[in-house]
């Protein structure tokens, strides 16, 4: 049986072809093989996570690499996250104005913008933008190190690659995502106000007062800190996909793509669960 049962030459894209590409394996041809590979992947991910945690909590700690990653993941993602937040703020302001005007609730516009941004749009946009930029970056970097034997060289030098490469990147993602979310929220609210005031002038002071009226810390802190979970997902998925890469340039490309696809998917799925958890624990 061919390794590629769904012939690309036939021009027919099989169902879940993208999933097959992500979990690419020559044995994953049949549905049974695909399920087996899918379960194996989660098993391997669990083992990888355990190794990273064990390496990360035992000395020597790699502070220098951690600070380098905080800069790489945090500072260097800031412009993109801020820009995405600003664009979403403008779009939200325009769309919400239209909807609220139709239902005669235009006075609620500042509160609607603030609530939407702080509750979910800011965190999820940050999560998705970071999945793209950070996930692809980590996945490609580690995959390239793997195929050029640099990770083996680290191990041969008696340095634990799980500690040096994975735990530092994952921790940096966990720490930086909430901070990036704050930046995205700020830019979205600022540009939401700008877009609003261009149509119907309103002072920033009035926008803030009206927008944050009735908004407490429970509305702000849990959604912001849930992005630490997004950070864990992005860092873990990208490091795992990067460090298990096989093959040359093709493997590096596959690792980068799968890091982005999987981390984006898991961020969205995690958001569904976390929204429910936050509603239960912070009503």
């Amino acid at each position, binding site marked *: 049986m061919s390794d590629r049962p769904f012939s690309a030459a036939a021009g027919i894209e099989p169902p879940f072809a993208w999933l097959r590409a992500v979990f690419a394996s020559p044995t994953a041809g049949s549905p049974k093989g695909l399920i087996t590979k899918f379960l194996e992947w989660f098993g391997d991910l669990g083992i990888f996570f355990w190794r990273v945690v064990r390496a990360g909590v035992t000395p*020597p700690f790699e502070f220098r690499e951690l600070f380098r990653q905080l800069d790489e993941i945090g500072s260097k993602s800031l412009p993109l996250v801020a820009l995405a937040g600003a664009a979403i703020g403008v779009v939200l302001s325009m769309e919400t104005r239209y909807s609220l005007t139709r239902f005669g609730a235009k006075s609620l516009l500042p509160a609607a913008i603030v609530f939407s941004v702080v509750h979910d749009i800011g965190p999820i946009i940050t999560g998705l933008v970071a999945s793209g930029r950070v996930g692809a970056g980590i996945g490609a970097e580690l995959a*390239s*190190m793997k195929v*050029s*034997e*640099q990770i*083996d*060289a*680290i*191990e*041969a*030098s*008696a*340095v*634990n690659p799980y500690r040096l490469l994975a735990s530092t990147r994952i921790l940096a993602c966990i720490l930086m995502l909430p901070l990036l979310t704050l930046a995205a929220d700020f830019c979205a609210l600022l540009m939401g106000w700008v877009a609003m005031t261009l149509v119907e002038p309103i002072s920033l002071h009035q926008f803030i007062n009206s927008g944050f009226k009735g908004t407490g810390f429970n509305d702000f802190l849990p959604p912001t800190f849930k992005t630490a979970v997004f950070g864990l997902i992005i860092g873990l998925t990208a490091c795992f996909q990067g460090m298990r890469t096989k093959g040359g340039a093709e493997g590096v490309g596959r690792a980068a793509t799968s890091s982005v696809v999987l981390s984006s998917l898991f961020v969205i799925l995690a958001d569904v669960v976390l929204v429910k958890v936050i509603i239960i624990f912070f009503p």
Partner: protein
Amino acid sequence: MTTTDPITMQRGQTREDGVAPVIGVENLHKSFGSQKVLNGISLAVGRGETLAVLGRSGTGKSVLLRIIIGLETPDSGSVRIYGEDIAGLALDRLGKIRMRMGFLFQQAALYDSLTVVQNVAFPLEHHRREMSSSEQSGRVRELLEEVGMEAALDKMPSDLSGGMQKRVALARALALQPDILLLDEPTAGLDPISSNEICDLVLKLQKEHHMASIVVTHDLHSAKTIAGRLALLNEGIVVIEGTFEELQNSDLEFVKDFLKNS
């Protein structure tokens, strides 16, 4: 069985019984899927001794080195370093044994985001934390001078030729003053002049540091230059082991063929 701990032994110290080889490989088997790569290999290398492992491409030479340093696990058989079986060792224990080993990768495997100096300093920064930064810099400079790369201190690996990368990788492998040196195709992909330079360098370092070395190569010329003893691999087993002269005098068809075509 001796009780001397390979980790706590001083550099250059031999075991009390003086019997156990520095590297002992016994009946090693390794397969990848249905493909058998190593099929019962046994080798031993003593202190100050260099063994060249020869063979055609794909006969498992590099896999053998990777198993010796613990980057791959064998299906069966054992690898003993100073008499201690490395199979199943905890990572920190294995790490301590690895600190006594230097490994030169086939493609040099320099860290491409670090400069030459940072590459050579990498093992020192992680394992010689007691050294001040000036002491580390001095040691790095010394190592780079030893391999003739003192002029490339701040260059990136991508700015170096293949031969220069191998020299830097060799300096990195020697940073922790290892007792054991494992060289994976040290002359692969190099022109004859660079290849000879690397051979001369390895020979000089071995004379100075008295390490137990295994050189994996398919280049007979470098093998006989660097090593006192040669082992020829075919289909996962050692076909013959001995000096170059012993190989030349062998009646085995495969050995004759190999020497004729090398």
